[in-house]
């Protein structure tokens, strides 16, 4: 299990990285933490011609708050965000979800944006981005664009990032006063990819529910109080799901109904 040969570039700044991307496009992969990509490369499922290592780019290492939004640079690791002192206050849902990603050892290397770029249907951060209706900031030599969560993830492991583009930051709206959140994940073992991950954010007007692990992309739905079981059931059916060796589609839908309900109740309990 050894990777195929590739060129390795460690640009000194973002412009160099973008220039390389413009030049090498489709054959290039950005590597920040490499915790998903590295495994796929070792198995030769992915065989990029060139790896552009952005882990060391200072300009991508910021965690900042601006205009009510938490902006996380592309070189920020999951662990760094989790340790960021303001996180639990500013966006408690992320603080709840981050410890569920992989393991201590992979979180210290794996990045927040890398997980979004990988767009695994079962992983936590794409769910968080979708649920919170965050944005992803993309850069290329052609310019900069901000893509909303709904348009960012286009399918399983597929995103709106063009061949010459890269993610420079992810933006998560801050928690609103009067709102509360809950998260629950069912996996076979601690640290495994979720069979189903459910997150919810709510306030007195309603609750937004997000589900990962069932459809190709996280499914999100806005609901008003009180939430009927039939609505959850319809949502489960709409997500569909597929059988694999870990779980049947039916079990996944059942988890949407039951865990969805648990999470919604948690939110409503916290609100009352």
């Amino acid at each position: 299990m050894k990777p195929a040969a590739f060129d390795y570039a460690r640009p000194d700044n973002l412009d160099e990285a973008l220039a390389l991307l413009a030049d090498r496009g489709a054959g290039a992969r950005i590597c920040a933490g490499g915790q998903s990509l590295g495994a796929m490369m070792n198995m030769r499922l992915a065989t990029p011609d060139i790896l552009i290592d952005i882990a060391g780019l200072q300009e991508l290492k910021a965690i900042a708050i601006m205009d009510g939004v938490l902006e996380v640079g592309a070189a920020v690791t999951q662990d760094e965000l989790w340790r960021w002192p303001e996180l639990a206050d500013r966006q408690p849902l992320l603080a709840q979800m981050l410890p569920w990603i992989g393991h201590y050892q992979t979180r210290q290397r794996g990045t927040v944006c890398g997980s979004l770029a990988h767009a695994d249907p079962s992983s936590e951060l794409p769910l968080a981005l979708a649920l919170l209706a965050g944005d992803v900031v993309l850069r290329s030599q052609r310019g900069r664009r901000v893509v909303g969560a709904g348009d960012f993830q286009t399918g399983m492991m597929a995103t709106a990032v063009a061949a010459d583009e890269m993610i420079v930051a992810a933006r998560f709206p801050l928690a609103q006063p009067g709102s509360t959140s809950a998260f629950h994940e069912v996996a076979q073992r601690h640290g495994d990819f979720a069979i189903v991950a459910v997150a919810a954010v709510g306030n007195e007007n309603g609750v937004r529910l997000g589900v990962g692990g069932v459809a190709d992309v996280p499914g999100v739905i806005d609901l008003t109080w009180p939430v009927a079981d039939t609505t959850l059931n319809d949502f489960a059916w709409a997500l569909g799901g597929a059988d694999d060796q870990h779980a049947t589609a039916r079990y996944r839908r059942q988890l949407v109904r039951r865990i969805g309900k648990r999470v919604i109740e948690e939110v409503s309990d916290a609100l009352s």
Partner: protein
Amino acid sequence: MQRVEDPTLLRGLARFADDLPTPPHACHAAFLRSPIAHGEIRAMDTATAEAMPGVLAVITGVEMQAHSMSFITGVKVDAPQYALAIDRVRYVGEPVAMVLAQDRYLAEDALDAIVVDYQPLTPVIDPVVAAGAAALILHPGAGSNVLHDRTFRYGDPAAAFASAAHTVEATYRYPRNSCTPIECFCVIADFDPGSESFEIMANFQGPYTLHTIMARALRVPGNRLRLKTPPHSGGSYGVKQAVFPYVVALGVGARIAGRPVKWLEDRLEHLTAATSSTNRVTTLKAALDEGGRILALDYDQLEDCGAFLRAPEPATLYRMHGNMTGAYAIDNLAIHNRVVVTNKTPTGLMRGFGGPQIYFPLERLLDKAAANLGLDPLELRRRNLVPAEAMPHRTAPGALLDSGDYARSVDRAVQEGGLAELKACRDAARAEGRLFGIGYAVVVEPSISNMGYITTLLSPEQRARAGPKNGALATATVAFDPSGAISVAVSSVPQGQGHRTVLAQVVADVFGMDPLEVAVFTEHDTGKDPWTIASGNYSSRFAGAVAGATHTAALRLRERLTLIAAADLNVPPEQVRYGDGRIFAQGNPDNSLPLGRSAAKAHWSPLSIPEGAGAGLRETAFWNMPELAEPDEGDRINSSGAYGFIFDFCGVEVDPDTFAVRIDKYVTMHDAGRLLNPMLANGQIRGGFAQGLGAALLEELAYDPDGGFQTGTLADYLAPTVMEIPELTILHDQSPSPFTPLGAKGLGEGNCMSTPVCIANAVSDALGRELRTLPLTRSRLAELMLGEEPPSTLSSTDPVPGTLTKGGDGHALQGQGSTIVPASPDEVWSILLDEGKLAAVIPGCHVLSMTGENTYRADVTLGVGPVKGRFVATVGLRDLDPPHALRLIGSAAGPLGTSQGEGLVSLFETPEGTRVEYSYTVRISGKVAAVGGRMIDGAARALINQFFKRLVSQSGGARAEEVDGAATTLLARLLSWLGLAK
């Protein structure tokens, strides 16, 4: 006492197989493996690979066959097997070619360049189907997939069933799993053309019966295969027995390359193709009297050994033969054994070997019997235990249960383990409506296998012709060197169990010295060190046999040293005493010598030592068990030398939403005779328990019904982590074995036998459902428990367009959908039938060429996200009904795997152009299926979407977004369907 092994290991200084030096000219091997379960190799093109930089040789099955002989097995059938497939592949992962290159990276580069043309054959996966008359035969020379079929009768089971007040019967399926050591296989082979001999290092663990098989396969006498093991091994649990075919492969590689060859197995190879437990289908019947006494058992066992019967198989089926009645006194027993081959990885040794396959059905059935009789399941078991007075007890099939007071052990565990409290807990939980259950398992754990047990599979006449096989010879050497230091050498090939510590302790006790001063050598060299056919690390033979042989050797050595020391101390030998590293005169400790002083004398002044002390203080003891006779004419066999007893009980709670099983309490009681080292014993029990728990709840080497292997990574094959292992209460009883020198029995395998079924019994109790297979994954329990799924209330009951469902037969990916193409059906039709335009429609197509009428060959790069691979695809258009419908058939093959598919495309004229409706079935196998199972459905769907997106744009359509990106539309669709979109 702390382990002598530990400081080296903890400091990272231990030398495992992959840490041993290789000469600079050594090359590295990598194996090309079959992506499909069953097929003929029509052609193999290795030319490109051979020309690649750093590549020294590409060895195919044909060359392997020319340089080696087929592996022999205990069952005589015409089913040749070599280290590489010759003209047919029979399981996913079967080696088909071996690349030798300067390093592993280059070797793997070359693997990607080898092109194999397979003609797929129907995969034979389910053992019941494989045994049926209609199944395709894997080994034509064998004439059947059933390679062994025998029945046994002990007592009069038919009469017992006829007269029984109750009978109970059920069929159980034990799955495939593996103990997956964290260190994979490693082999370094060298060939000396001068002496025509092989010197091969492998992290092999025995049994050394396999040495004979390897030497024969390499076409040399045993003394020209010098097999060495490394100083440390990263776990085995039986698994590393299965390295032996690679020992032969690498030997042949070294011979062909003319240089040393090294191979380190990777995890994907290991999980896919190293080995497995057998999966077994057992129909078990029990006859009981009114009082719950078991009168008879009737086993029908169908054992699935995978694609080849690989030595020592079918040993899994026979290892427990003598103790098939479990811990119970049962006079009548019927056994029908069949061994079947299927298109799965060949099986082999595994901790618990044969145990879980017996105890899962037996102990499940006893619960069922108890329920039928209205008896408490533990009470039913109690009524049938072999009584202490009967020890040693000869079971109906011939085991000599050596010692134990089973009833006492059960009672102690019930008391000390707190069964009453656990029952109260269950009652309280149930009163609250929670799913709480209690399970029991009673197990006899055999150790020290009889070398003759496997011959039980032969008829008495065949055995008479072949000559007897029996015993369990163990050997150990203890010696003093000229400095007076002591060392021990054994051929037990430890894999982490602390053999050095135990042997140092055993020898130190004999000589009254500090164990740290005893050097123990466990790396082994068949060329130089004593060994026997029974050597190796298996069947828990260490404590009983190897430690015993060491003890015997040490005692003999002490007798001789005593003669020398008596002369030195000037006292009669009877008055020589040992202690604190010294030898002294009884009653006069001042008259003493350092232990080594007299010992050194045997080297330095052999002429001055007393008569009878002999020269050279070195003793090699061989130890055997007279109790281990060959099977008798009635097929009775004492299959093992010692039999421990285990009683487990546990309480579990099942989450009604997630069906996660939480172990509330687990108690395991062991009677393994005399405990040599309680700390190490408990370590073995905890390790076995963790693996047993994995087998119960998580672990399965899973295949789809087409033989595609699905669990190729440690994210798919789910070994428990620290989070999944609950508290364990360990209790010991000690009934020394009368037959082993130290009274000790094996104990490391027991929980692999007892824990899976104990947990299953508890879960069954909690859910009130019969459980017939393992592992009890959440999804599997959910499927068992969930009633009809509540339908959606939405008007549309169609699945989301473009989604995939598993087919009616539960495996192939199937999907359907439709899309609007802004062109007339005739225009769409012309695209599909135009070579150039079709090339533009097929995703990732580089070149498309017509190879026959409506048949094309294409080079394509397919993938989703970062995952991409090159494939050679064939596409055929069939059943043409222009411009209305056609059938597409295709296949693709590349380094990532193979796929075969079929699709129906129908065109309907609509006002906007053409509505294209499609449905398809795809089967995917090989690496991508083994490591990416979670993603395959989505990937297939994404590729189909790409195809139609391109079809739309080829048709000049501006509506590409219709089919673009399942996700955006999915998200929007969900919301609008639910009428909740903002």
